């Protein structure tokens, strides 16, 4: 069993003072069969009251309204997570599986991806796991990593046509492919050791086990990954959602640190 310590910091600066700002933040790890949260500490500046809740995907969220005028909003979350297992079964997952099998939101194939899908033909005796692996390797070959080309709203189809993108785009395209071949797949947002930003990968349901695949790095998701949230696509588990009055232009700075810790 691995214990991971995480430190997530988000700083938003506004050009002009923000009068009021509603926020919903999903930056604390999920509690599920994969991982157990030992502790979390949240601090928000300017200080404000907030509520804890869970969204409909079971992701933990904090939400509230900052009513003090401010030009800087800082959220800091630190904590420890125990990774119990990398592949896992989920109670009642049968009930919501349909959600992860249908094309949805940013994961709907257009003519570009439909053309790419036609290149793949899997023999009937291949297992779902083998299909996932094959698709991941091919996607990693056929799509290039490049920052600054795509944005937060880019769909799988758009990214595919551009030919390059970031982890979010890899995940969206990969999900679209898997669902096409009848494999339930979901988008995962999380934190990993050695990366200064948040990361995105995919969980696929293979023979009743959720297995994590990281198409950006062409590898399986092991015990140095912390899951924050999952959903049908990136929008379902966006780390930060805000609604503000005034403020003008804004800049966001995010720093992430994850490290393995020895259990005391």
């Amino acid at each position, binding site marked *: 069993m691995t214990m991971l310590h995480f430190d997530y910091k988000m700083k938003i600066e506004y050009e002009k003072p923000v009068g009021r700002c*509603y926020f*919903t933040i999903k930056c604390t790890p999920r509690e599920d069969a994969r991982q157990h949260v030992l502790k979390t500490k949240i601090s928000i500046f300017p200080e404000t*009251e907030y*509520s804890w*809740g869970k*969204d*409909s*995907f*079971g992701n933990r969220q904090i*939400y509230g*309204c900052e009513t003090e005028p401010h030009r800087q909003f800082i959220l800091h979350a630190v904590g420890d997570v125990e990774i119990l297992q990398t592949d896992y079964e989920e109670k009642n997952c*049968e*009930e*919501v599986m*349909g*959600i992860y*099998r*249908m*094309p*949805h939101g940013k994961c709907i194939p257009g003519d570009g991806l439909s053309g790419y899908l036609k290149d793949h033909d899997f023999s009937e005796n291949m297992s779902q796991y083998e299909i996932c692996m094959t698709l991941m390797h091919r996607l990693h070959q056929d799509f290039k990593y490049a920052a600054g080309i795509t944005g937060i709203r880019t769909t799988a189809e758009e990214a595919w046509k551009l030919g390059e993108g970031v982890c979010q785009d890899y995940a969206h395209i990969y999900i679209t492919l898997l669902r096409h071949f009848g494999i339930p797949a979901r988008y995962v947002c999380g934190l990993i050791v050695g990366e200064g930003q948040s990361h995105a990968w995919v969980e696929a349901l293979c023979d009743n086990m959720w297995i994590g695949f990281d198409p950006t790095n062409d590898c399986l998701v092991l015990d140095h990954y912390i899951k924050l949230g999952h*959903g*049908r696509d990136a929008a*379902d588990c966006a780390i930060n*959602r805000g*609604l503000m009055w005034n403020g003008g232009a804004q800049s966001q700075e995010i720093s992430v640190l994850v490290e393995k810790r020895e259990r005391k």
Partner: protein
Amino acid sequence: MEQLELLKHKDTINELLARYGVKFGIYKNNIFKEQLFPFDSIPRIIEHDEFSRLEKGLKQRVMALNLFLNDIYGKKQIVKDGVIPEDFIFAFSGYMAECEGVIPVKKIYSHIAGIDLVKGKDGCWYILEDNLRVPSGASYPMIARDLCRRSSPDTFQNNRLEDNRNYADLLRKTMDYVNPGGHTVILTPGRYNAAYFEHSYLAEKTGAHLATGSELVVEKDRLYYVSSNGAKERVGAVYRRISDEYLDPMNFNPESLIGIPHIYEVYRKGNVALLNAPGNGVADDKGIYYFVPKMIRYYLQEEPILSNAPTYLPFYEEDMKYVLEHFDDLVLKDVAEAGGYGVVFGSSMTKQQKKDFIVLLQEEPRRFIAQEVIDFQDLDILDHGKIVPRKADLRAFVLMAEEPMVWKSGLTRFSRNTDSFIVNSSQGGGFKDTWVLYQ
């Protein structure tokens, strides 16, 4: 029937309706136009026994739809048991994943349902459509009855008809039943909304606050009404007259200016009732309509009392075959469209249109349903002093508190033109009062 007296007052009543602002807004070629909703003073009359049967059938239908909604956002047993294919649930926009695992107060999803029916020439009533999102229209027969009663009191003394003024009581009961504590509010997008008259009329009649989104605020998982002097009062029930996607910019459409940020979180925690519940679209999609009789058998172990119009799903191979063979006898509906749009009659297409349509149908079979054209009964209307026939439907209102309750009246809408089958108010046309007789 002594209705003649009433006919004389048609113009006066229409003038009064206009003065009260009884209007309907419609979009035509992307331009919003507000138009009067013409009233015809010849009532639709439904005999006691006939209505009793309707009442039983409507209650049964809404009970099943409500059980379906609980199931779909919960265990999904009906999908697991193969009664409804998952394609007809998850891929449609009516299904909202945000509603998964959220249980509304007292497990009621469908508080106010508007069920559209037509009466065929065979004398049978057929269900055309279920409306479980924001069905409007109850206020029109309410106010029309009120004005008729005033202009022609004798008519109402001499006929044995059910009083329809109790709609406000039924609605109040429905709202109070699920209110976990606090005021009751009718949430309107504002005075420029097509149904604003109805919002303000129902608020007045039920004693609820009429509020826009900016008058409601969320604090510490509670919803408050902020009055003009700044005082905050807790709200427990919101009869919202805005659609799901505009309800909460923090959960749904972020561009919404008429919603209330974080109201959905308050709802999630059970501190406010939303009427109707978000997510109901999964039960009133045109695609799911086909399955409602199956739902009644599945959840209630009863035979449906009221029939659907005979419907085919091209999604199923045998139905596709039937649709292609009987194309000219059928009406085809695009499940993604509403308000009388996306409806085409096979017989009215040119050869080329038909060919193109069939290609589309085969590419996206899930997108369409096909129905037999019901030859429904005409109702008489008074048009420039002459009595002429028009196609008409009936929107019945079923409210759910401890038990489902059917309002003994309803909105009868008729088509604008003689040859039109489409009676939707967004396509022009007018309305009538609906009289239900007692024994």
